[in-house]
């Protein structure tokens, strides 16, 4: 059981505190309710570029990292479709430095042209490193616009086109900051060696004076229902052919999220997952295969991806994946396997919550979903999934007309 308390400041900042005295450290997590889904389609990648700019100095502090390192702290951040999340760990005696740093960059950034120029280059190198200079790296870039035609999930967090990044100017950056970075659009979580009273007092002192801001309203067009199967074939000089299949699913707080999560674990949770045992070990069609949810807040995707063994026909591989998924409808062996993935989920939740950083990130995200109690209830939600619910979800989502497929064909000649 993870005990936590929460309160809100007058300016709308929500704060969650979980005390864990077994550690000398404190984790501080600040989640901003802004991600790549909030971007203008003509200027994608801004939310992520912004994350980089957040380390370039703020109104009263010319450099974010040095003062933190000077008190023994360490930090990082990530951006996804939905959120931008900043986190640090710090020896508890120096926690006030964390408040000073984080509140100052919420107050106002030092919008410097030099920093923008440098970080644009860094982001373009990041794009090259992650997506262009890796075999299969561009598959995910092709997958999104295949599955989404309307919703902003159609572009990746790093941006759909690096020209957008190159063209970003300081005015756009400023306006993005003031319409998304604000106490009333953020959640602060503190976990570790900190009591509630100190957390409350420091939050009020440092974040209290920051004024509320007007947040750009979110009017996202829902993705229309997909009505026919989509298949894209790409040829690349890679060692082996790969298969990517995605199906649209419901939103993160939809009633069948944990059912779908459990389905991906039945399929690909560990070495004993069905896709692995049947298609890698058994039929030897794939050298590796995986299944997972995107876990986006708006309706997301379930993704199955695998690399084929040499000489395997992609049609046969594709059919075998569908066969394994459909096999989950049968009672055969399912009871034990459901118990198995439930045990594993419980165990992995316990392990994840041994880290103060994970606890802080989870508390913030669950608060954003409107359900902070999920930090303690997720295991039950997952345990409550029945085979009937699995069958229902399979029937609802795993239809060919709801599916997009990429056949990523290797053009390499055999030796």
């Amino acid at each position, binding site marked *: 059981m993870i005990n936590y308390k929460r309160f809100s400041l*007058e*300016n709308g900042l929500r704060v969650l505190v979980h005390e864990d005295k*077994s*550690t*000398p*450290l404190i984790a501080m997590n600040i989640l901003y309710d802004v991600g790549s889904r909030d971007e203008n389609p003509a200027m994608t990648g801004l939310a992520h570029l912004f994350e980089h700019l957040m380390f370039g100095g703020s109104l009263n*502090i010319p450099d974010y*990292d*040095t*003062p933190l*390192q*000077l*008190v*023994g*702290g*360490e930090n990082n951040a990530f951006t996804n479709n939905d959120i931008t999340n900043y986190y640090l760990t710090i020896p508890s*005696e*120096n926690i006030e*430095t964390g*408040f*000073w740093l984080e*509140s*100052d960059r919420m*107050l106002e950034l030092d919008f410097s042209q030099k920093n923008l*120029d*440098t*970080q*644009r280059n*860094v982001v373009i*190198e*990041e794009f*090259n490193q992650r997506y*262009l*200079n890796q*075999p*299969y790296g561009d598959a995910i870039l092709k997958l999104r616009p295949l599955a989404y035609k309307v919703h902003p999930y159609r572009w990746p967090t790093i941006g759909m086109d690096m020209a957008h990044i190159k063209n970003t100017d300081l005015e756009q950056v400023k306006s993005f900051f003031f319409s998304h970075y604000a106490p009333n659009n953020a959640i602060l979580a503190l976990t570790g060696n900190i009591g509630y009273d100190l957390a409350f007092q420091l939050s009020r002192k440092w974040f209290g*004076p*920051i*004024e509320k801001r007007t947040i750009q309203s979110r009017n996202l067009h829902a993705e229309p229902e997909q009505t026919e199967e989509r298949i894209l074939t790409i040829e690349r*000089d*890679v*060692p082996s052919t790969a298969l990517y299949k995605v199906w649209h699913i419901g939103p993160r707080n939809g009633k069948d999220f944990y059912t779908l999560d459990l389905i991906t674990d039945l399929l690909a949770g*560990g*070495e*004993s997952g069905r896709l692995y*045992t049947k298609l*890698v070990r058994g039929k030897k069609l794939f050298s*590796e295969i995986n299944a997972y949810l995107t876990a986006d807040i708006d309706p997301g995707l379930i993704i199955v991806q695998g690399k084929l*063994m*040499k000489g395997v026909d992609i049609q046969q591989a594709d059919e075998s994946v569908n066969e394994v998924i459909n096999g989950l409808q049968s009672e055969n062996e399912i009871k*034990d396997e459901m118990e*198995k993935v439930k*045990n*594993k989920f*419980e*165990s*992995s939740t*316990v*392990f994840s919550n041994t*880290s103060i950083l994970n606890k802080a990130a989870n508390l913030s995200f669950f608060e954003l979903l409107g359900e902070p109690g999920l930090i303690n209830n997720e295991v039950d939600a997952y345990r409550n999934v029945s085979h009937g619910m699995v069958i229902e979800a399979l029937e609802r989502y795993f239809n060919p007309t709801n599916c997009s497929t990429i056949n990523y064909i290797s053009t390499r000649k055999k030796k």
Partner: protein
Amino acid sequence: MMNNLQRIRPPVFPVEKVVIPEAKSFRLNNGVPVYLIEAGTEDIMRLEFIFKAGQVKEYLPLLASTCNMMLSEGSQNYSSEELNRSLDYYGVFLNQTAEKDSAGIVLFFLNKHIEKVLELSREILFRPVFPEAELNSLMKKRLHWHMVNREKVQNLAIDQFFESLFGKNHPYGYQIREQDFENITPSLLSDFHTKYYTPENMAVIISGKIHNKTAELLNSYIGNIGSNENNNEASVNFINGEKLKKVHINKSGTVQNAIRIGSATINKKHPDYPGLKILDSILGGYFGSRLMKNIREEKGYTYSISSSISSLDIAGYKVISTEVGQKNYQKAIDEIYSEIMLLQNVPVKKEEMAVVRNYMSGEMVRMFDGPFALAESFRSVWEFGLDNSYYYRLAEKIKTIDPDEIIELARTYYNIDDLYEITVGSE
């Protein structure tokens, strides 16, 4: 609301002195040493079995890693599927590792399942049968993974880096070729296993919530394992680096080139090592390091650049790693050398020393926070025959090292003529 807060920097408090809980140790009936580290709030355990069965012991490429991977592919009493299903059923996370010097398994689990975990561990470690069908299938998969990995410039670079440092014939150095995947047979594995996965060759490290009966249980499952042979064949205990210091591997169609610069060096057993660790941090060991500040934050040439220093049994090595676009890659190399030369010639200023001292002190707190970090920190000195006094020496050195000593270390250990420079990508 009035913004009347004076945004004055809070005081900097020195990071508390590190206190490291000592491991308790005892021996099983068969002599296997066991180390127990009590930590954490949850009723969980990290259980590591470590053997001197790494690559350095192999007489054929891939032998050590394949032997380790095949441990869970079938035993006297369980098929590979049964083993894996059982581990998953009890919510156990199993990591199999074969490194340059050592190999073994690490299990993470809820304490209530300890008996099952010990029973399965005994099967995996001491009763594997190396079935031929599973082996063939594993080697085909590994060949696929290998081919994909060899598409990545960073893998081509690091493989060549180790070959250059440690030589084409040493297990630390040789590169894997596609034909190597055809040479491993069940009997070779079985032979390697019999020689090196023995009580004389192993230790157990346990951390988490330790129960009264933990020791007794361990003894009842593992304490009666015997061994027939005693194999303390010495490994090849010298290394012979390649003569050629600069190697470029041409790979067309890349948008970034990989760079690895470094050399073999001292390991943890050497008294200069703590100082070298600090020098490495200043150069490229953290976000505020010189390489990061100059090459990423100032010039924007790369998404990431870092340096690190690592210890192996018979040597250590240091390496600077980055991926840089074609346009800037020569400039990045020049900047790397000029940062090294600066450290050899210009004393590090007081302010920068303070940052690195405090950052590293914080890092030391993180290294001993919680049962998993504690176990890893314990292992990484124990392997070298050292104990926690290494960490106290490091903590002391972090406080007391002065700029002259940094210059001295940079001159001794970063002689530019000794450094290998490996680059991969389009010319």
